[in-house]
C-alpha cells in the first residue's frame, strides 16, 4: 500500500482526472478509484468528501443536484474550464516528474 502522504498529494489529481470525461457523484468517484487501482488505492469517505468540497471551493469542479427517476437525488460533480486547465498542468507535471524519476532510476518505458 501507499503512504498517506503519497495518497494525499495525488488525490486531487485523481479526482480531477476521473471527472474529465463525465460528471460523477461522490460515491462513484470513490468506487472508481478503488476499481481502477485494482484495490490498491482507496479513499475513505472522510477523506474523499472534504477534498471534493475543497476542489469545488477552488472553482475547479462544480457540484449539481440531479434527480434521476427511480434513484435518490445525488450531487454530480463536473470539471470546470479552470479545473480542466489545472488537470492538464498537473498531468504534464506528473509526466515530467515520472519521466525524470524513471530516467534517474534507469528503467525503460514499458
Amino acid at each position, binding site marked *: 500500500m501507499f503512504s498517506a502522504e503519497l495518497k494525499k498529494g495525488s488525490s486531487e489529481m485523481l479526482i480531477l482526472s476521473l471527472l474529465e470525461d463525465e460528471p460523477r457523484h*461522490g*460515491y462513484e468517484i470513490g468506487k472508481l478509484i478503488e476499481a481502477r487501482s485494482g484495490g490498491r488505492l482507496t479513499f475513505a*469517505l*472522510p477523506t474523499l468528501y472534504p477534498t471534493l468540497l475543497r476542489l469545488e471551493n477552488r472553482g475547479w469542479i462544480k457540484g449539481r443536484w440531479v434527480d434521476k427517476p427511480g434513484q435518490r437525488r445525488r*450531487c454530480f460533480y463536473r470539471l470546470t474550464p479552470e479545473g480542466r486547465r489545472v488537470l492538464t498542468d498537473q498531468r504534464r507535471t506528473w509526466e515530467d516528474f515520472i519521466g525524470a524519476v524513471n530516467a534517474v532510476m534507469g528503467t525503460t518505458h514499458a
Partner: protein
Amino acid sequence: MRDWEQYVRQHLTLPDFVPPREARIVAELASQFEDFHRDATARGLTDDEADAYARAQITDWAALADMLRAADRPHVRSRLDRWGEHLADRARERSRRVALLADLWQDLRDARRRLAAEPGFAAVTIGTLAIGVGLCCLLFAVLNGFALQPLPGAREPERLVSLQAPVSYPYFEAYRDGAGTAGALAFIGPVPFNVSTGATSGAGGARPERVSGHIVSPDYFATLGVEPLLGRLIGADGSYAASDRPEMASAVVVSERFWRTRLNGDPAAIGRTLRINGGQATVIGVAARGFAGAFPIGPADLFLPVGADPSLAPELRREPGSEAGRGPGGESGGEPGGERGAVLTRTSSPTFRVVFRLAQGQSIASLREAIELQTRALDQQYGGTQDERSERSKTTEQTERDKRDQRDERVVRGERDAHGRTTPVSLLAAGGLMPSPPSLRRITAVFFGTLIVLILSFTCANLAGVMLARGDGRSREIAVRLSLGAGRFRLVRQLLTESLLLAIGGGAAGFAAAYLLLALLARSLADSPAFSTASRLTPDLRVAAGTFAIAMLAGVIVGLAPALAATRPDLLHRLKDGPARGTRHVRRFGLRNLFLVYQMTAATALTVVIGFMVGGVYRSARADLGVDADRAWLVSLDLARDGFSRDEARAFLLALPERLATIGGIDGVSFTDAVPFAATFPTTAVAVAAGDRREAIHHVATQRIGPGFAAALGLPRPRGMELTSDPLRVDAADDALMPVVINETAARQLFGGRDPIGGVIRHESRRLQVVGVARYGKPGLFASEPAPTLLLPLTAADLVPGPPDGLTIVLHSQAGVGLPAVAGAIARVDARASAFNLRSVRQAFAQLDRGVHYGTALYALLGTFAIGLASIGLAGVTAQAVVRRRREIGIRVALGAARGSVLRLVMRDAIVMAGIGALLGAAVAVGLARVLASMNREFSQTLAGGASVGLPPLAAAAPLLLVGVALAASYLPARRSTAIDPLITIREE
C-alpha cells in the same frame, strides 16, 4: 432502511456553517451512506449487515467535522459574522414591532372613530371612570399627603421613635443618657407665641401675631438631623445651658416659612430681634426648608431653647396651679423673669415630648425595655409626690367602685392622674407627619388600599357590564370580521384599545377633578396656620403615576373580559342568530345581578346616612341658640404670652370692661376661657349627691366665664341668677362654695326632676353651688340637645398661663366693632396686651363648623359615586335586555304590543333589582343607625329623640329617590326598544 439524513444530523453538528451549506453536506453524506448500503445489499449482505457496513464508513465524526471546516472555509461563518446575523435577526424582529405599532395606531384611530359614533356610551363610560379614578386619586393623595410623607427636613426619619406620654425634663435627661440611642430630644409644644417682628423696623404699632412654636432641648435639631438654611441652630456647638451661655437665653430659631412670610426672606435676618411674649429674642438661624417641627401635623415656626429666659414663654416659668406654684408665696409663681431653667429640674409635671433616634441596629423593643428599666429607677428617685398621693387616696372613704370610678373620683378631687410613670412605656414611630404606632402606617396603607380596590372593583364591574351589553350588540359585526379572517388576538386587541382609550380619558378627567378638589381644599386650609401640610395634599408625581396605573388597570379589566367574550369563536351560531337569545339567557340572579342589587343596597344605605349627616349639619347650623350671633363679637387675648403676671392679668381684666364700654355702641363686655359654643370644651367628671349618702358621677363640659357673660352674648337671662360675684376681685377661700351656672341639659342630667338651684356639685376639690340655669350650648351633629355644661367663674388662676387659645373677650354691640378700636382700648389699659382674631359669633360658628362641612362634602361625593354607579349599572342591564330581546320585541310590536308594555318588558329586570336593593338598603341604614347608637351616646340620644332627627322619613324617602333614579336610568336605554322596527328584526332571521 434507516433515514440516513437523520442519522447524519444526529452525529454531525456544524453550527458555524451557513445553514444552506450545512443542509447540502448532510444531504450528500446521507446519499453516500445510502449508496454504500445499497451496494452492500446488492453484494448479498443482509440489511443489518449492510447497515453496519455503511455506518462503518465514518467512525470519527468530530474529525470529519474538523476536516470539513478546514476544506470548506468559505462557507464557515466567523464569530463576527454570526454576531452580525444575530443583529440582523433582531432588526427583523424590531421591524415586526414597528408593524405592531402601526397596527396599534390603526386600532387607536378605529377606536376613536367608533367612540365618536357612540357619544352617549363614551360619555357614560368616561364619566364613570372619572368618578372612580378620581375618588381613588383623592384617597391616594390623602394617603400620600399624610400617612406616607416622611418628616420634612429630617435625616433618616425612619429611625425616629417617640414616647407616647410626655415626661418631665429630668426623666428625659435620664433617658437620653442611659437608653443607648443615637440621640434624643425633648420639646414642649406646640405652644403659641405672641410675636412681633416690628421691633427693628420701627413701623410702629406692628401688631403681634400668634405663632406656634416648640421649646426645645439643645439636641433637638441634631437628633432630627435638620440642617440650617441660614445661621446656626440651637445646640449646634454642643453646649446650650443658659447659665453657661448667656446669649442662648434669648436665642430663637425660626422656620423657613416664618423667615419667608414674616421676615420677608431677608438674607440679613440673622441677628434680628423679635418681640416674643413680651420678651426679646434674637434670631440665630433659619431651619431647613419644609421643616415644621418634630411633629409637623401641628406645625411649629419658632424654636426656643429650654434654657431661654422665662419672660419669653409662660411654659418656662414655674407652673402656676401646681403644688410648687401654689405654695407659700405662690403668687410669685407667675412672675415673668422667674428663676431661669426651673422647668429643667421640675419633676412634678410631665410636659416634654421625647423623640429618640435609634442607634444602628437598635430595635424599638430593646429601647422600650431600657426606658422601662430607667422609669422604675426614676420613679423611686422622685417618688415622693407619688407616695404622698397614694397615702391620701387611702384615707378617703371609698366604697366598692370599679376602676373607672376611682379614676373619675381622683379627678373630682382635683388630683392629677399619675404622670404616666406607672403605665407601661409606649413608643411610636416618629418619622412621619405625626407620631403613630409602627403598625399604624401599615394599617393605614392597607385600609386605603382596600378602599381603592373596592372603589375600583365597583367601577370596573359596572363598566364591564356596560361593555358586555355593548359587545353583545356588536357580536354580529365581530362574527363577520372573524369569519373574514381577522385574528382573535387582533380583535381582542382592538377592543382593548378602545377600553384603554376610554380609561385614558376617564383617568385624565378623574385626575383633573381630583386635582381641582384637592387644590381647593388645600387653599381653603392654607389660611389656617395650624395646617402646614396643606400644600402636600395636591397630587405629586407619585400620585399622578399611581392614578395613571389605576386608570390603565381599570381599562384592561373593563375591556378584557367583554373582549374575550365577544370574540368567542362560536362563529356560525352567532352569524346565524345575531345577538344571543334563548340559549344564553341571562339568569335573573346571576352574579352580575346580585352585584347590582348589592350596589343599590349600598347606595340606598349611603344616601340615608348622608341625608342624616347633611340634615344634622343643617339643623346644627340653623339651631336657634338664643344668641345674638351678629351683635355679639369675640376677640382673643393671651395675657400670659404678653408677659403679664397673674396679678397684672387680674388687674387688667378688672379694668378692661369700663375701658371697652367707652367704645361707641358697646353695651356688654365679658370674658371666657373658651370660644362660646365650641364643641371642644374639656369634659371632666363631677359628683352630685344622689341620696342615700351616695354620689353619682357625671361627665360634663366646663367653661369659665366672667360676669355678664349671658348679657354680652345676648342670651336670655338664666333662670335663677347670672354669675355676678367676681372671684377675680375677691380671693375666695378654698373651701368656700363657688357659684356655678349650669345649662338645661346639665340640670336635667345631674339633678333629674329636682330643682337644681342651690344644689351642690363637687368638682376638682371644690364645691360648687348652682345659682342659675341657662339655655346654653350647641347641639352636636346628631344630638338634639347641647352637651351638659357647667359655667364656672373665671378665677385669677385661670389667667396665667391661661387657655392655649388665649382668653376670649365677648363684646355686645348694637353697631359693628372694628379691631383697631378694640385694640386701642385694650392698649390703653395696658400697652403690652395685644388683641387678635376679632370676629362675630356668626363668623366664629362658621369657622367651627368647617371641619364638619368637609366631612359632609366627602360623604356627598361618596353618595354621588354610589348612586351614579348604581344608575349606570341598571342602565346597562336595561340596554342588554333591549339587545337581547330585540327579536322578541319586534314580534310583539308586529302583533300590536303597545309602547308602554314593551317598555315595561325591558325595564322589568332593572326595576325589580332596584326595588329589592332599595328595600334592603333602607333596612341596612336603620340597622346601621342602631349599631351606631349602641356605640355613640349622642347618637343614641338622637335616636331616642325620634322624629325630630328625621331618620324614619329619610329611610322612607331615600329608597323612593333611588328607585326614581333607577327608573330614569333604565328608561333611557329602554326607549331604544320602542324604536325597533318589527320588519327589520324579523327579516334578520
